[in-house]
């Protein structure tokens, strides 16, 4: 019974950690730069969940004040993550622009091939 309670209480954290770790794995292990950016995005979205899930209060409603409700979830993480998402897409676009330029300069977006080309010189 204790085990079941622990699972219910921490399931969100464990999924967040799984997403974070797989994002980290993609960034470290894969050489393709667009795949690396996707991994970076996975890591980023796991951080969004990490911020949002403790702000949820069971039985609460979205933080839009009205007469019928008294319990609201915490609005502060929503604000932080809202701006983080838009900044995230802006930095993603910057990364993609760099990848496009790298592809034009080296003819490849694989890290290993770029390193191999540099060693030949």
């Amino acid at each position, binding site marked *: 019974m204790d085990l079941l309670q622990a699972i219910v209480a*921490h399931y969100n954290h464990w999924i967040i950690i799984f997403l*974070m770790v797989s994002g980290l794995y993609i960034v470290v292990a894969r050489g393709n730069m667009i795949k690396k950016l996707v991994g970076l995005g996975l890591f980023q979205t796991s951080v969004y969940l990490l911020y949002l899930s403790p702000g949820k209060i069971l039985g609460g409603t979205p933080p839009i004040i009205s007469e019928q409700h008294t319990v609201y979830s915490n609005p502060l993480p929503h604000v932080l993550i809202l701006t983080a998402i838009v900044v995230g897409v802006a930095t993603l676009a910057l990364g993609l622009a760099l990848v496009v330029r790298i592809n034009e300069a080296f003819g490849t977006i694989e890290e290993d091939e770029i390193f191999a080309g540099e060693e030949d010189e």
Partner: protein
Amino acid sequence: MVLLTLLAAITVGIVRMRNLFAVVVLGGIYSFLMASVMIVLDAVDVAMTEASVGAGISTVLMLAALHLTKTEEAVPTHTPLLPLFVAVATGIVLVFGTFALPSFGVAETPMNMHVAPYYLQNSIPDTSVPNVVTSVLSSYRGFDTLGETTVIFTAGIAVLMLLKGKRELKPGPKRRRIRR
């Protein structure tokens, strides 16, 4: 809970997939699922942003970048054992850390007792705006938002600097050497 499990399943797909086109499309599905999870977590504003930004704009940008590069990922040359070990070790340490965190959905955590009740109580008297997220975003923490807008501005200018203008057609010396 079901949604979170689906998210994990999609993540496995993204990690294993080698065709980048499929990865980008899976990323779109991932973003929509993430938006649904955010609605369950009462973050409606954030869910709206994630659905339009994550599934809309970033997918389009990724596809545009794929159009300019290649869609197939090369087979990795070295074994992924060391990164796998690093990732799993990090994960174990983090899971060990979760047992000290407050469990899901509890109202009396330090985070929910600190400054959030002030915003919830004073939003209507101070600004007459019922959506607390909007009032915190642009009034109480307006300085933050000004900073974020500046970051977006800077990123936009940087992308324009990198990508605008004609493409240089003469291939550099490195390019030929790799293509041999």
